[in-house]
């Protein structure tokens, strides 16, 4: 049965509308994976000697154990953003003689072989072997430790599955978890209650009593079962229907009337965003990621290299642009033939998308103004980054959109539907952010900060001045690809 599922996935990959793009990105991902594997392996081999040398009076294993909890939290956060969960289109399987449990097991077991689960092995195994030979613990004790670490990795894997499902169903469910996490972080920071210390002690205790490895193993099994129950119960066509019973929301966005001929399209897009889970999530993501600056601004290390702030600025003011813009026109995929045969000039259609994205950039730019607390330069950079986003990145993204021919299922419940939310989505956005950073750096390095600000702003202004010409060109690109798009959007599945 597993072989058949794999066969289905293989076919769906190679027969999908965007197989070329998929393969290209897969190759890039493989290179990234190799890079990280090597980096982790080097760290794994070097960790024991490094700790020995830096802290000669401490036991390396105990130090590592103290960091395990931190790693778990970090790993979870990272996976939440990056890991695409294995998708299996269930609808056609429902009426076939396939046991529900088998399909669910396939999805879950496949997730165990994710690259994210192999990565920690590159540290765990070399470090464990070092400990066996160099430290005074018994061989069995360290094998137990390694088993535990692998079990913890799998726990994180399944926990992520659960959290991700909860998150896509209902964002608010995540707030208490985040609050608890913050409380623990604060307690840790002020050394009132150091959770990581206690977790480390537990790990140390486990190394001395290796039979306790059974506990994390049971935990993995429990989380697996939880996922299994969770997914099996949703393996029905109407699982997504329950909440649809709600009354339709008929808010009209009357204020869009100000935008004249574009108003109906703008209204349309706003309804699209508010009424469908997938695009709605992009709004929440944009607001959450406004906090991204907090990772960088308080840290003086970055003050030296201001070009990095451009990256942060482009990212914060453009996150909605990136998440929404790169899937234009796929959002409208399910009714694209209607858009193409109704009385809608392509130009107006695209202009309204550009307007919507530009408005989002302005709003996000305004929301970043409190960062002025960390200095005028940051405010300036963010504003210029916003200008650059509107002037240059919006047309680039819209142009890139003309190559989209993959459907996004808005109606589908988010159950096992994580189309495009994996690492690939982030990779596409790299050129959008790297180029302005480079422009800024060039001006900053050879002339100075003011010149860099003006230089970046100039690119934005030039983009705005030529907006009409750029849009004409983009309209041409969409016209040329129209039939390929209509055909691609007709295809269903991943």
């Amino acid at each position, binding site marked *: 049965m597993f072989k058949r599922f794999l066969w289905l996935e293989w076919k769906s990959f190679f027969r999908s509308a965007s197989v070329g793009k998929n393969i290209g990105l897969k190759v890039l991902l493989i290179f990234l994976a190799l890079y990280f594997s090597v980096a982790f392996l080097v760290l794994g081999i070097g960790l024991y000697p490094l700790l020995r040398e830096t802290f000669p009076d401490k036991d390396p294993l105990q130090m590592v154990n103290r960091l395990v909890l931190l790693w778990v939290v970090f790993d979870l956060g990272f996976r939440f953003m990056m890991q695409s969960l294995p998708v299996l289109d269930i609808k056609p399987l429902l009426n076939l003689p396939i046991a529900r449990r088998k399909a669910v097991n396939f999805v879950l077991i496949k997730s165990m072989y994710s690259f994210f689960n192999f990565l920690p092995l590159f540290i765990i195994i070399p470090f464990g072997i070092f400990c066996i030979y160099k430290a005074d613990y018994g061989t069995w004790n360290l094998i137990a430790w390694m088993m535990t670490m692998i079990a913890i990795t799998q726990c994180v894997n399944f926990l992520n599955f659960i959290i991700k499902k909860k998150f896509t169903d209902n964002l608010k469910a995540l707030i208490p978890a985040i609050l608890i996490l913050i409380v623990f972080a604060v307690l840790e920071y002020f050394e009132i209650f150091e959770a990581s210390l206690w977790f480390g002690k537990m790990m140390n205790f486990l190394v001395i009593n290796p039979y306790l490895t059974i506990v994390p193993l049971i935990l993995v099994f429990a989380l697996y079962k939880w996922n299994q129950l969770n997914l099996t119960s949703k393996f029905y066509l109407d699982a997504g229907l329950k909440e649809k019973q709600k009354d339709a929301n008929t808010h009209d966005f009357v204020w869009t009337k100000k935008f004249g001929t574009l108003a109906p399209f703008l209204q349309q897009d706003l309804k699209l965003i508010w009424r469908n889970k997938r695009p709605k999530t992009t709004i929440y993501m944009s607001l959450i990621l406004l906090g991204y600056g907090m990772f960088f601004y308080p840290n003086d290390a970055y003050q030296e290299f201001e070009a990095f702030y451009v990256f942060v600025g482009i990212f914060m003011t453009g996150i909605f642009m990136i998440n929404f813009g790169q899937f234009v026109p796929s959002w409208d995929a399910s009714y694209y033939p209607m858009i193409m045969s109704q009385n809608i000039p392509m130009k107006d259609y695209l202009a309204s998308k550009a307007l919507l994205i530009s408005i989002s950039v302005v709003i996000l730019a305004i929301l970043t103004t409190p960062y002025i607390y960390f200095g005028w330069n940051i405010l300036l950079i963010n504003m210029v980054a916003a200008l650059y986003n509107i002037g240059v990145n919006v047309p680039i993204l819209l142009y890139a959109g003309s190559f989209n021919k993959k459907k996004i299922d808005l109606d589908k419940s988010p159950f096992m539907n994580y189309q495009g939310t994996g690492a690939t989505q982030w990779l596409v956005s790299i050129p959008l952010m790297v180029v302005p950073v480079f422009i800024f750096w060039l001006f900053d390095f050879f002339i100075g900060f003011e010149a860099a600000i003006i230089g970046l702003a100039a690119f934005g202004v030039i983009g705005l001045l030529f907006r009409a010409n750029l849009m004409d060109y983009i309209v041409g690109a969409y016209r040329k690809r129209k*039939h390929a798009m209509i055909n691609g959007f007709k295809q269903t599945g991943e």
Partner: protein
Amino acid sequence: MITATNLSKIYGGTKVLNIDHLDIPAGQSFGLVGNNGAGKTTFFSLLLDLIQPSSGNIFNNEITVSESEEWKPFTASFIDESFLIGYLTPEEYFYFVGELRGANKADIDNFLSNFEDFFHGEILGRRKYLRDLSKGNQKKVGIIAALIGNPKVVILDEPFANLDPTTQIRLKKIIKELTENKETTVLISSHDLIHVTEVCERIVVLDKGELVKDINTSEATLNELENYFSREVGATHPEEL
């Protein structure tokens, strides 16, 4: 109104549509019948520039559809559910289409009041999104939306399929009224020979992409069509004739 010349569509070496010449005058109610794979939907998709012809051209009011967008303001269509926006309520969808066709909210409300018995109380004011309606009700919305704003050309692909008998009868009435004053050109495809002979003044039969019959509807038409389709099972195919 609509002219197709040397029109053909080839998919992977197979000709799925091949029409030398077809002229549909303005105001005609035109019916297209044929078995599955006859090329009915292909013809409509070409007419709406949703697919590209392999050869030839199709003109809508003398506008080449594959080259200009000028035909869009006076052409309305409903092919399948991909013409509906699932996350809108029926009212919002009608208003949206109305705005695209220069009709305001009051115009639309007025317009919709003519179709209350067609909707049978299942469409308006139900506070439901289109995606949550049944297939039949979705179809009702799509068909009526295609009539908004007095289009000169109305294209309906299989409008009778999926509808309940009462609604089919009401739809026939609506189409007859639409073509009464000979101002609107209506193109309909159907598998139901009875319906199509009732509402169309001209019927064209397609078989494997070829135009095999072009009939001006009369009393005898239904019989002729029924004979044709029952005979065809054992008969030679037109391209072998």
